[in-house]
């Protein structure tokens, strides 16, 4: 049984799992769409309060990390173990930078008394409350996925170092990579929806 490694099938399973992740976020995007329709003015107002520089920076960080993950697969296929390890380490660093940015971003907001059920939001306009409510839920869930993605990449890294992921057998790396790209994919939509609505 172990002799059978159908990498296409393994990848297929991962894609199906990613669909479920897309729909998971999709439920939140349904909420976003409706509330944007109901409170578009307040969404624009809320969007201006988010730090566009940090948002853009995080977008760049994630895009670059996606590139390095994709490149690490190329490296493994070309049997360049050292390059693959370096690229993955860099991707993990990017993920870490993203989380640190997020931490400071959330911290500042919370410092300004903007967090779920805070006095400012409760007494303020309902539209703003919804905007920031969604902001925390969606970026929070996304952050959780970043952490999971980093764990998967770390596992792949360890497996590469131990020689368990090689040019002929790299399904685990490929699937972790797919997961990481999904995290990037979600962010590509979250970024304009929250930081650039005007």
């Amino acid at each position, binding site marked *: 049984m172990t002799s059978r490694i159908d990498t296409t099938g393994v990848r297929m399973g991962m894609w199906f799992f990613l669909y*479920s992740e897309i729909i*998971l976020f999709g*439920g939140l995007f*349904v909420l976003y769409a409706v509330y944007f329709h109901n409170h578009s003015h307040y969404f624009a107002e809320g969007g201006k309060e988010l730090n566009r520089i940090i948002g853009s920076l995080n977008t760049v960080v994630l895009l670059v990390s996606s590139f390095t993950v994709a490149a690490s697969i190329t490296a493994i296929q070309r049997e360049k173990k050292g390059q693959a390890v370096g690229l993955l380490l860099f991707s993990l660093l990017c993920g870490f930078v993203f989380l640190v940015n997020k931490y400071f971003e959330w911290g500042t907001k919370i410092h300004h008394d903007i967090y779920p059920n805070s006095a400012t939001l409760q007494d303020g306009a309902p539209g703003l*409350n*919804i905007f920031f*409510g969604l902001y925390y*839920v969606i970026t929070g869930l996304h952050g959780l996925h970043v952490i999971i993605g980093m764990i998967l990449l770390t596992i792949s890294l360890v497996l590469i170092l131990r020689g368990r992921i090689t040019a002929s057998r790299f399904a685990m790396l490929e699937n972790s990579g797919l997961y990481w790209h999904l995290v990037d994919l979600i962010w590509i939509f979250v970024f304009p929806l929250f930081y650039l609505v005007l």
Partner: protein
Amino acid sequence: MVIMSSDLQDGIMTETQSFFETPSPRGLTGVKAWLLTHDHKRLGLMYMWAILFWFVVAMILGLLMRTELMSQGRTIMGPEVYNSMFTLHGVIMIFLFAIPAIPAIFGNFFLPIQLGTDDVFFPRLNLFSWYLFMFGGLFAIFSLFFGGGFPDTGWTFYVPFSVSTKGNVSLTVTAAFILGMSSMLTGLNFVTTFHRMRHKDMALMQIPLFTWSLYATAWVQILATPVISITFVLVMMERFLAIGLFEPDKGGDPLLYQHLFWMYSHPAVYIMILPGMGVISEIIPVFSRKSIFGYKAIVISSMAIAIAGSLVWAHHMYTSGMSDVSVFVFSLLTFIVAVPSAVKVFSWVSTMYKGSIQMSPPLFLSLCFIYLFTVGGLTGLVLGAAGTDIHVHDTHFVVAHFHFVMLGGTGFAFFAALHYWWPKMFGVMYRFRPAYIGAVSAALGFVFHFVPMLILGLQGMPRRYYDYLPRYETGNFLAGFGAYLLVAGVLVMFVNLLLSLRNPRTAPSNPWGGTTLEWSIPSPPPMENFIEPPVIKGFPYDFSEIVARSQQDGR
């Protein structure tokens, strides 16, 4: 006793002995051989015992509720207990019985065999799904005893009540979340198996209909389940963080909860019924000794139901205050779903027409299915039409309707599947007479139980009410009587099956004259399912050989 040389014996053992005797992975013994197994057949059986347990528990809860309603006022329980009880009955029946029952038990056991392969694509993931299923069940039990007790919201967990009630909603929705994961991963496994492990000689139009229906179901499981997961996460967040996403004075919209909820839960009714339809499509041709009528139409209708079923969720919300335009659109779309379901019923009946019908418990239960499911489907049209729905919304009519579909449909298909595949799974044959008695009693009880409820609903008796006006007493009493008959019948069927396990394993490999691959291998199947490479028929329901053989025997 025959003594063989040990090498030879080992070789023969692992190939031909049943999966009960050969653990997978090898070397596991005792209870470990079950709890750590990768074998899809063992996992199917493990699901079966768990699901039977939950089914009986929820059935007894339902019986207690019906007993409470048999006479006016307090009979055996207080109103709070009653509220928790209908919630518990709903949650268990939906998440721990109807959704997993047929895919997790019979799907796990027979999908790989019908595809001519030795296991599902991700055997370890399959084991993991089973553990998720068990943990989900454990969480549901925990929620009974921790915090504010079991929720009293009904299985729909509608906001704002589910956010404000003292009942332990958080734990219960966590349970449902975990069970959803389990169901989703099972679907993922099946789709991958379907595409990657199907026998290389088996083209798409040579796949048995049960497997096709599981394939359609699996897609709904993958794509719809995450919606309920995120909805339940949001309910928990509302309870812990009070964000206000569904609260009008904080800018939220409570109707959106209902939209999200039904975006999953309507497709979920197709997760429940599609595999049942697949079972019926297997049983009817076998006992009619005749190829299935409209094979392609049934395949297409399975996929069509899966797709169209995802477009109609808001027909649960006609009276909730959503826009008239959407009432109109969703009512229209709802009628479209009726078409593929009707195609299937038409095909089953046409298959039996001029067939040489051989009565047996599985066929009898399938006939009950066709009858009860048709009533359920037609009353569904009454509810799908926006005008009539206003009159019967949230009454006993609705409750009776979905019991016709879920119990009369999925439930009876489940019983039929049990009786159809029992000899294959355990290698034992059960007694027919008690099976018939149980089936007749269950079907009669069912009619006594739910037809009065249809009438009560038309007369205006609301659902989920603890007490009622005097004029509803006769109907409620009759329904209670029917419930006892129904439960008795189900228990007779189950006990009869369980008693058969004491018999020696002498069931032939093909007791019914089936043509799909599972009937070409020994009962119970060996570890790797096929001893010799399977021979794929040009058409899976080709009965010419079976008929020819029985004619020879007759002469």
